[in-house]
């Protein structure tokens, strides 16, 4: 027992990574095999290893505590990020094995996918500039390889894949340049050191941050540069869309969360930066929601809504710099947003993609009358869409902030922020209700035939619905001050 404790102490932040590497190692023995039984065995093995990694990640953190050295830091926030990455990887495995099991390179794709997960974990817990940079580049590389491997059979998509991935390369190169400027300002090697030192007023740091900002902007394909992203998403094979949404985007968000401390420092000092951030957030939100409203293709709707949510991350940073929320609650807001994105989009996409597979087009008219023919799924999806109402928690801090101060003392920026949030909320609801109304509309051609889903999809979606319902009821009870006394902590006041 002591020996086991010793090992677990030695390998503290790496336990989940070691488990995943073990899975890669085992699956590398079966690389050439094309038998279905082997594929099933490997899917089971990898999902078990992912669940084990998820468990170990939380368990080791609780039992041993935070960890940091020259290269890595592993604290509360990082633990949650790693858990989110592993959770979305588990769902990605579901998507990949649902749509790609007939691929003759399936096992190789699985190893690529596991390696991308490992890279993402390293990126989340990295602290040193060099480790951040190298893992970012290799993560982009592996995602590129994964998407090309998944789309191997489709010829016409290839130029679009290339057009898409030239942008992340530019991101990586700009990061390289930005780090060189940071090196010129100070020889510190991680962001938190810079934040605490006096070097932060150095102009090179500000310049480097501007370049990082441009790089992140290009990474997310924010407005008006979203062309290649939209084109790729429209033509992609089903599971590779999931890879882009549930692996590529969250990692970018975690990258942004590493930088947001520095950003907010500069925004606080300078009003010009604050207004630039506000304008960017406003444009992202507006463009995302209007774009989603104007299109009839489900894939495009989902991808626009992703851009919308990324606009909200930028909004969080500007809310922090306006002094409305603290640093801790900004991190919590970001995490909550990521969770909201994951828990709503994964089941939505799982259902819509299977509808698309059975009808061969992604037009919104396909889901017309869906709620009438598949009542159970329709109700589930409605609950999931309504989970976006949870977005309203952004208004909470404003109420707290405004109630304490005189009406005349409220700054212009704060009012604009509140306005932006209100507009975003309205647009989001419009988009959600547009789809919900489509569900329960009368179909054009009389009776719509019932789409038969695999049985595990029902269980899968029900799981998400239950999680959302529990969270919603919990939050409601807390808002209404009803104490049920099951758990000690409160969702609305959770902080690190």
């Amino acid at each position, binding site marked *: 027992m002591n020996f086991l404790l010793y090992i677990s102490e030695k390998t503290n932040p790496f336990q989940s990574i070691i488990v995943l590497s073990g899975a890669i190692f085992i699956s590398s023995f079966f690389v050439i095999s094309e038998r279905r039984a082997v594929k099933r065995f490997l899917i089971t093995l990898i999902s078990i290893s992912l669940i084990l990694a998820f468990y170990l990640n939380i368990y080791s953190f609780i039992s041993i505590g935070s960890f940091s050295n020259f290269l890595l830091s592993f604290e509360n926030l990082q633990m949650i990020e790693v858990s989110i990455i592993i959770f979305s990887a588990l769902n990605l495995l579901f998507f990949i094995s649902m749509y790609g099991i007939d691929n003759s390179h399936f096992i190789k794709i699985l190893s690529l996918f596991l390696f991308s997960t490992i890279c993402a974990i390293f990126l989340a817990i990295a602290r040193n500039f060099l480790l951040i*940079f190298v893992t970012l*580049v290799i993560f982009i*590389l592996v995602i590129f390889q994964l998407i*090309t491997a998944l789309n191997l059979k489709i010829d016409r998509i290839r130029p679009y894949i290339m057009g898409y991935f030239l942008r992340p*390369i530019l991101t990586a*190169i700009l990061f390289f340049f930005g*780090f*060189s400027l940071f*090196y*010129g300002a100070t020889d510190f090697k991680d962001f938190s050191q810079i934040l605490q030192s006096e070097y932060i007023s150095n102009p090179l740091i500000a310049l480097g941050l501007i370049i990082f900002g441009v790089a992140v902007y290009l990474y997310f394909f924010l407005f008006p540069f979203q062309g290649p992203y939209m084109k790729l998403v429209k033509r992609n094979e089903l599971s590779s869309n999931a890879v882009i949404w549930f692996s590529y985007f969250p990692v970018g968000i975690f990258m942004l969360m590493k930088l947001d401390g520095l950003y907010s420092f500069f925004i606080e000092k300078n009003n010009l930066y604050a207004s630039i951030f506000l304008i960017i957030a406003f444009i992202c939100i507006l463009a995302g929601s209007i774009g989603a409203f104007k299109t009839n293709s489900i894939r495009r709707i989902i991808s626009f809504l992703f851009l919308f949510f990324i606009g909200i991350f930028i909004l969080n940073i500007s809310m922090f710099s306006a002094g409305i929320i603290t640093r801790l609650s900004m991190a919590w807001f970001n995490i909550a947003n990521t969770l909201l994105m994951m828990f709503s989009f994964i089941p939505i996409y799982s259902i819509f993609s299977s509808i698309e597979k059975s009808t061969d087009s992604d037009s919104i008219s396909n889901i017309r009358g869906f709620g009438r023919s598949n009542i159970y799924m329709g109700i589930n999806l409605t609950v999931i869409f309504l989970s976006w109402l949870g977005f309203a928690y952004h208004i909470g801090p404003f109420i707290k902030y405004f109630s304490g101060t005189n009406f005349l003392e409220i700054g212009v920026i704060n009012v604009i922020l509140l306005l932006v949030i209100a507009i975003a909320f309205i647009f989001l609801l419009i988009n959600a209700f547009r789809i919900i109304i489509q569900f329960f509309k009368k179909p054009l051609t009389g009776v719509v035939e019932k789409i038969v889903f695999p049985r595990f999809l029902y269980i899968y979606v029900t799981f998400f619905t239950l999680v959302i319902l529990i969270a919603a009821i919990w939050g409601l009870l807390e808002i209404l001050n009803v104490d049920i006394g099951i758990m000690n902590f409160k969702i609305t006041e959770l902080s690190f």
Partner: protein
Amino acid sequence: MGVFGIFYSRDIISVFISYQFIIISAVINFLNFSQFLYQSSLWDKIFIIFGITSLYFLMFCIIYYIYLKLDILDKEALYRDFKLFKITRSDWWGEDNI
């Protein structure tokens, strides 16, 4: 110059060339700062080695993919008329027909 190249470029090779210029300028930055500010510390060298290795490996993979997988007609199209920042109306308004 790299930034200029990205906006000016009309074919894919120019895009890669301008990428290289940004990398080169970053390398010059690293070496300069290391020599004049920090008495030639080792950190920049290691950063350059790892950074350039990974970046060039990424670019190599993409070029290899283009070389191996794209049709010759697509390649011609890439060579003739390719802009990194091309904004069309269908990107955010209305439909994108395949």
